[in-house]
Structures are given as C-alpha cells and as structure tokens.
C-alpha cells in the first residue's frame, strides 16, 4: 500500500522508449428486468435491500435459476463481436470470502465461456486520418454482480480503517457480462486513445443491441485495464491491472499514467510487479493494491446447482439473423446521408448524440436542425446536469413540434429556446410550456404599430434619419420594439411595418 506518489516519465519520451501492450476486461450490467438467478427486479436507485430474496441474498437452501434473457443477450453480444458461441458450457463457482458476496462465492464462468474468439474494429483519428485497429476478443461470459459496500468512518473510504460498513444487496445477482480482450500490441503512442475508443465502441454496440443502457455514472460499465511495456523487439513485460476504471476518460487516463509510471520504473532500474492497482478519478493516477504474486486461489469448479447452458444451433442462427445494423456501418450510412464530415461525425459520436439525432431525424426533423438542437442547447444542459442526452426530458417528438411551430411562424428561434428551457426544466410538454409561459408571437399589427410609435417617440433623432432614407438606422427601432414585446414579435414584420409607416423602402 504505497501512499507516496510514483515517479512518472514524460509520456512522449515513454512511448519513444517502450511499446505498450494493453488489455481490457470490461464488466457490463445487462438491462434485463430481473436478476441473473432469481426474479428480483434490477431497477437502479431503489432503497437499500428492498430488491432481494432468499436466492440473491444466498440464504441457506436457496438455489439459482438461469435468466434466459441474460443468456440470449450474451449470445447476441458474442455474435455482434464475431465470436464463436459454445454449443455447451457451464457456470463455475469462484470462491472467495468478502462481505459483499452473499454466498462467499460468485457464480461466473471459468474455462467454459459462452462466447470465444471474436474481434471488434475501432477507429481512432490520427494526424494521418482515421486509423482502424482490430481488437481481438478472447471471451465473453456471464456472471452475477456482488452487493455494494459503503464504508463509514476512517478517511480512506475503503473497508480497511472504516468504523463500520453497510451492505446493499440490491445489486447482488444483477446479470453481468464480462468481455475480455486478448493482449493488444502495436498501438504505440495511441494506446490510451485506442483503449478509450474500444470501450466507447463496446458501449455503442451494447446500446444498439439493446442488451444494456450502459449508464456509466451508475456503475453499469466497469473496466479493468491491463498495461505492460516492452522495449521494441523484446518480449512483453510484466503487466499491472488497474481495477474499476469507470468512465471513458478514466480509461484513457489510466493507460496514459500507467505507461508513464512503468517507464519511469523500468528506466530507473526497477521492475514492474504483477499487481492490481486502484485508479483515482481526482488525480488521474493509480496506487498499488494487492500483489498478484500472493493472489487468492479462487478454487473454481463447475456450479453443481445449475445444468449446462446448451444453446441450439437453430437458436444461435436465429439470433444472428436478427442482429441490428452494427454501429460502424450505421455511422458510415448516416454520414453519407447527412453529408457531414469525418470530424462532424466524430463530434456527434463523442457527444453520444448520434442515436438521439437519428431518432429525431426519423421522427421528421431536418437533420441540420436535429443536430443544431442536440449539439447545442441540449448537450450543454446534459453536461451541466452531468447526465446523458438520452436522459434529458426532451424527446424527439418535442423537437418535431417546435420545428413545426417555427415553420408556421408561431414561434421565433429565440422563443423556441425558451420553450425547450421549460421542457428541460420539467414544466411540461411543448404546448403546455408555451401556454404557461405565454410564448405567443406578437403579430397583431395594432399592438406592433403602437410599440413602433412609442419607440419612434423615444428616439426622434433616429426617426428623422430613417425618414430621410437612412434605412440602416431602422435596426435601433426594431431592437427597441423587440425589447418592448419581450422578443415575441417577428423582427422582419416589425421592420416592414416601420418602413411602411415612414414611407421609405429598402
């Protein structure tokens, strides 16, 4: 447990001396309605220990039953990752003692995973244009999540040194899939970016398959990041495993800082030890956890309370045939259809806006308008609230309605923003926000003319200028009218009325 900060080497120097090899183990909670081995609900955020039963608390005598939807989701994920699907495989028990484990063993898969030997292509932007990396997938398997521990007292937030700890078993038994890559060599200085792009693409894939909503802030996707370094042409070095890296940004930073740490260690004559490390979001660095050299022996053996999983060939082919379009293919299609650049598409992807924009376009909104709203107002609002675009209160139907009202001249662009402000704040749907806020375009000539008269009276010198033919001065009067009508007038209409009144033409 070294508390002191490790030495780091400058990143550019590090990757000029060493070739990094990375590997990722990603755990994702599946979006099933019930848990992996019982019928308890999986909803996030419920009061502690209210979504539990004898099975997921591991009471004596209770027995697991496999969730068929979880098996199906795993097979679909495996197929989407180009894996082989086992015709027969078993669950295994991973034995170790920990208070968040109701049975003191986790039902997982060991040497007989459901999916093996696949790959996922990821694209990363480089100075020489987009570059494709094929990430080889070792395996995809099913397991159950553990409970969640909260440690009180002490200053570490960890079990060691805490005054007491609380366990919430709502999470125990939530279905997880673990996706393990083979070692990924050859990414060089791009290693952190490739790692991030891979996790992002996995997330896109799971969402497109509908097997998980992958809400990273709820901890539904967690990564273990493996890094080792080698001098060019030499055998791979010893790897470290940084646990529980829970955001895309953290994945990138964890690889980055581990390359800096290991290279500093190796060039100063030290050696990398095989260990698990803890990543800290605040510093972007990791500290040493337990050494793998005194690793626990998990005593895996086939789970005797469950029968083997043996998906039929017909079922697998049926699932393969019903897979949705792969995210990469979808991006290429939309980019072409919308006529946008690589950079613009990359920005949409990075903002997680592609799906909602596609939905909005499908609902009937012009693509540029859909992009404008989602990438502008909405992206800002989501960022402020620290949530994802899809979690905002605004729905594609709202944009359809607002765009229609703008088209009819019933809303100005500025008013449309106010409407969405209300929708995002939960004031109701588009029409009720308009009604409540009284957002009506002032198109009644009489009241506009009155406002124009008032403005002209207040600025007689400007009125003089316009009347004498200096049309460009009209802006000051239009501005004053707009201000007086709180932006609810149509500026073009105000201008036309003003010029007509003063008898001048453009």
């Amino acid at each position: 447990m070294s508390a002191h900060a490790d030495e780091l080497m400058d990143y550019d120097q590090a990757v000029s001396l060493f070739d990094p090899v990375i590997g990722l183990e990603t755990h994702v909670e599946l979006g099933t309605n019930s848990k992996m081995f019982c019928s308890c609900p999986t909803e996030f955020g419920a009061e502690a220990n209210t979504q539990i039963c004898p099975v997921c608390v591991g009471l004596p005598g209770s027995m697991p039953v496999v969730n068929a939807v979880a098996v199906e989701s795993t097979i679909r994920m495996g197929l989407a990752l180009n894996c082989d699907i086992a015709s027969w495989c078993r669950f295994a028990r991973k034995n170790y003692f920990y208070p968040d484990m109701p049975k003191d063993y986790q039902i997982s898969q060991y040497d007989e995973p459901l999916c093996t030997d696949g790959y996922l292509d990821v694209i990363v932007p480089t100075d020489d244009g987009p570059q494709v990396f094929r990430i080889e997938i070792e395996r995809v398997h099913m397991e159950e999540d553990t409970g969640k521990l909260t440690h009180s007292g002490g200053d570490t937030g960890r079990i060691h040194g805490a005054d007491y700890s609380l366990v919430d078993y709502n999470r125990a038994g939530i279905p997880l899939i673990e996706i393990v890559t083979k070692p990924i060599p050859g990414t060089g200085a791009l290693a952190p970016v490739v790692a991030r792009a891979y996790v992002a693409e996995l997330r896109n894939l799971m969402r497109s398959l509908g097997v998980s909503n992958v809400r990273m802030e709820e901890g539904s996707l967690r990564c273990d990041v493996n890094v080792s370094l080698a001098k060019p042409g030499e055998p791979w070095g010893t790897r470290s495993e940084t646990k529980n890296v829970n955001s895309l940004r953290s994945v990138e930073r964890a690889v980055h800082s581990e390359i800096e740490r290991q290279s500093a260690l190796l060039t100063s004559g030290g050696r990398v030890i095989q260990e698990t490390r803890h990543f800290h979001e605040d510093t972007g660095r990791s500290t040493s956890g337990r050494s793998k050299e005194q690793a626990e022996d998990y005593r895996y053996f086939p789970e005797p309370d469950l029968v083997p999983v043996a998906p039929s060939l017909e079922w697998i082919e049926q699932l393969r045939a019903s897979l949705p379009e792969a995210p990469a293919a979808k991006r290429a299609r939309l980019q072409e259809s919308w006529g946008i650049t690589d950079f613009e598409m990359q920005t949409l992807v990075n903002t997680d806006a592609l799906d909602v924009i596609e939905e909005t376009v499908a609902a009937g909104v012009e693509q540029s308008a859909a992009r404008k709203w989602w990438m502008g107002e909405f992206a800002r609002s989501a960022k402020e609230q620290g949530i994802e675009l899809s979690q905002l209160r605004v729905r594609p139907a709202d944009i359809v309605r607002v765009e229609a009202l703008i088209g009819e001249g019933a809303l100005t662009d500025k008013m449309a923003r106010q409407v969405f402000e209300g929708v995002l704040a939960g004031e109701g749907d588009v029409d009720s926000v308009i009604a409540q806020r009284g957002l009506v375009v002032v198109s009644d000539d009489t009241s506009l003319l009155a406002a124009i008269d008032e403005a002209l009276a207040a600025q007689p010198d400007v009125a003089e200028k316009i009347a004498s033919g200096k049309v460009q001065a009209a802006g000051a009067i239009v501005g004053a009218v707009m201000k007086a009508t709180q932006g609810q007038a149509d500026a073009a209409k105000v201008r036309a009325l003003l010029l007509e009144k003063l008898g001048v033409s453009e």
Partner: protein
Amino acid sequence: MGDLMGHDLTRQSASTLADAISQGEVSAEEVTKAHLERIAEVDPRVHAFLYVDSDDALAAAKGVDAKRARGDRLGALAGVPLALKDILTMKGVPTTCGSKILEGWRPPYDSHVVERLRTSDIVILGKTNMDEFAMGSSTEHSAYGPTRNPWDLERIPGGSGGGSSAAIAAFEAPLAIGTDTGGSIRQPAAVTGTVGVKPTYGGVSRYGLVALASSLDQAGPCARNVLDTALLHAAIAGHDPRDSTSINAAVPDVVGAALNGDVRGMRIGLVRELSGAGYQAGVEQRFREAVELLEGLGAEVIEVSCPHFEYALGAYYLILPSEASSNLARFDGMRYGLRAGDDGSHSVEEVMAITREAGFGPEVKRRIMLGTYALSSGYYDAYYGQAQKIRTLITRDFDAAFTQVDVLISPTAPTTAFKIGEKVDDPIAMYLNDVATIPVNLAGNAAMSLPIGLAPEDGLPVGLQIIAPPMTDDRLYRVGSAVESALVDKWGQLLIEEAPAL
C-alpha cells in the same frame, strides 16, 4: 382396519391414520396430540427432535379437521404427523442443520418439500436431529448431542438423518423426511429397522434443502412400512422450476407399485463388490436369506460385477468435501446465525474466521479443509478431476449392470448399529459405513433400505438395499413391497414391532 378406539394411535401406520381421519373415526388433532405426548414421554431419552412445534402442529391438525367438517376432499396423508429433518427450511421455524453456526436462524421461506407437505395437509411436528450439516453416519456429530437408537439407547441411530429414523422407530411420528447425500436416509433406516428411500437425483426439489454437496443431495421419505413410504414419496416428488436439477417428467407410480408387490419374472442383480470383507456375519446371513426369499417369490437373482465401486468411497470423499467447502462458505457471521469476535477489535476477515472457528464442529472443519485442498490450484486435476472420472466409471458400471437386471441389491450397511462413541474418533471407520450406499449417490440412482431381520449375534436390525435406474423409483416399491409382505407373513408383524418398549 376398523375402529381405532382403544388403540394406541402412535402405533398405527400413516395410511391407517389417514383413513381413520378421513372417515371421522379419529380427529387429526387427537392424532397429533397422541404423538406430541409420545414425544414428551420418550424424546428426553431418544433425543430425535431438536425442535417441537406443538402450537403450529396442533393448528395444522385442527385445519385438517375443519376441512373435513366442511366436506373438502382430503389428501392421502391428510392429518398424519411427520418429523422433518432440520436441514429443510420451514418459514419462521428454527433451522440449525445440527450446527451452532445456525443457532437461532429462522428462515423466511418454506422449502419445496415443506410446501408440498403443507399442500398435502401433513402435520409437521418439528425438526429432527442430524449430524452437523449432514456430515456423519451416527448423529454423534450434531452440535446438540447425539440421538439414540430406540432398539438400544447405547447405540447410534445412523446418520446423518438419525433423528428422523429414530423418531419413526420410537413411534414419535409415523412419517419423516430425510436427506441422503451418501446414505443418510438408507443407513439410518437400516440400523433402526425402518424403511427409507433416496429418490432418483432430481426427483424431489432441493429448493430449501440446505446444501451439503449439491450434486449428491436428495431429500426422500422415511416410514415404518413400504406403502407409507410410497405415499410420502408421491407427496413430495415432482418438478420444481426453482431447482434447475429437478427432473421435468412424470413421477413414477410409486404408490401403485407399493400396492402391487410382485417380483415374479424380475431379474435382480447381486452386486459382488458389496459383500465380503468388512461385512458383519449376521448382516451377510440375513442378506443371503433375503436373496433366497426373492428367489422363492419368483425373481431370478444373478451376480453382477461393478468393478469401479472399489473407488467410490475415495471419489466421494473428494467430491463431497469440495462442494461442501463452497456451499458452507456463506456461514461467515455476516448475515444470519452465529457471529463471534465482533467486539470492535477485529477486522471483517477476522470476524469471519473467528465465527467459523467457533461455529463449526470438527467433522465439518475436516471436510472443509479436505475440499479446499482438493479444489486448490495445482491439485484440482489430481483430486477433483480424477474423482469426477471415477464418478463417470461408476455410472457406467450401473448402466452395464442394468442392461442385465431390473434392480440391484446389497446389504444397506456393512454392520448393525454400533455403540455411541465407538467410531467417532476414527473418521475412516465412520466413512466405511456408507460403502454400499455411496455409489448410488454418485450415479444419481434411486434406492431403498428395507428391514430384513435381526442379526443373530446382536439382535439388531439389518437392512436390504434395493437400487433402481434413474426415474424407475417404482421398481424399489414393487420389490420392497413383495419382500415386506413375505416377511410379515413369516413374522406375523413388521420387524419394528419387535423393538423393545422404551
């Protein structure tokens, strides 16, 4: 049977009691009271029960009487009292598995077996004693003291389900539920002169059965005669989606078979490997007589060989401890049961260790250590892996034998009931008690133990084991019923009637 007035209700069979209750000759409440009184009278000496649930038992009995009064149809065993092995959960009733580590735990749910008993209106009297977590063959490994054999209170009633067999043999209940991982229903039945059946693995749901070794455990019926055993078997068997290893198929007609005992034309195999060295002379003598009896009844008895049975005990004592070491991990003091060492000075790992040190008895610790070792990295293939291969070979031995014969027979246990204390410090001697019953669990077959007489040298009961292929449990009852009828004809009564008065 006629009017039961003036007869001791506790001496009756379950089917007789059920008939009398449904005919209104006697109330279920009277039957339950009679058994509760018998328990109060003899159990201080026998110690079959760990917990007697008088109030709930009487309430359940009154419920049966009310049903009858309303004219509702009653099940075949409605109102009959039963003793439940303390390894099956029953909502709100203490379940200890004979261990200190579960002292005070009241499960919040019913096991499948208990649900089925309730559906059948069977009256559960209480929970019976057992070797801790079903590890043992004598009930001496119970944390709550041994149960005594009603035939001789100085002797063991078998194990692990000695409480259930003793309760029946002592006329404290006409029915009991046992569980059998390596012989824990059959060996106690053999040494107490009662009947016990281990159904086909998967025949009775394990949901709510606290696991010893998941791939071997099976709950089953215990009674004093074959028909009662069959009626109870039918009440608890059948598919349960909560147990993935539960067989989704029709339950064999065990009651029909018990009512039509007939072995004419049957081929019966005598297992060569389950005799000879280690088998008591009187046990072998009674077994030979049973073979002659079967031949006399029209069966063809031939000798068959199961060469890999020789390795069964060794394989069993790797597979069982391996699974048990994992199944028993959850008893860590965190969620229920005993917690020791939580005085603010110990870490969570230390509290777990202190709790397990304090809560488990020596036999449980021995097997957890054996299992932990056998599953350890570097030893797995040599121990657990090899044991699984033996298991496959034993299953093949059975398959081959069953191409020649309809059922197999052997003595149930190599000896009659031994003295309390005689083997408790010699694990290997204790383990050898199950040498004839263990192969059945490894292969998942169905098997029965049936009393066939008293060994001449000690006057204690001897059991006949009958083994049938998976999902042909009815064959056990067909053979068992034929043997029982012939012996009752010979003796004028069931063997259990010869047990000394308590």
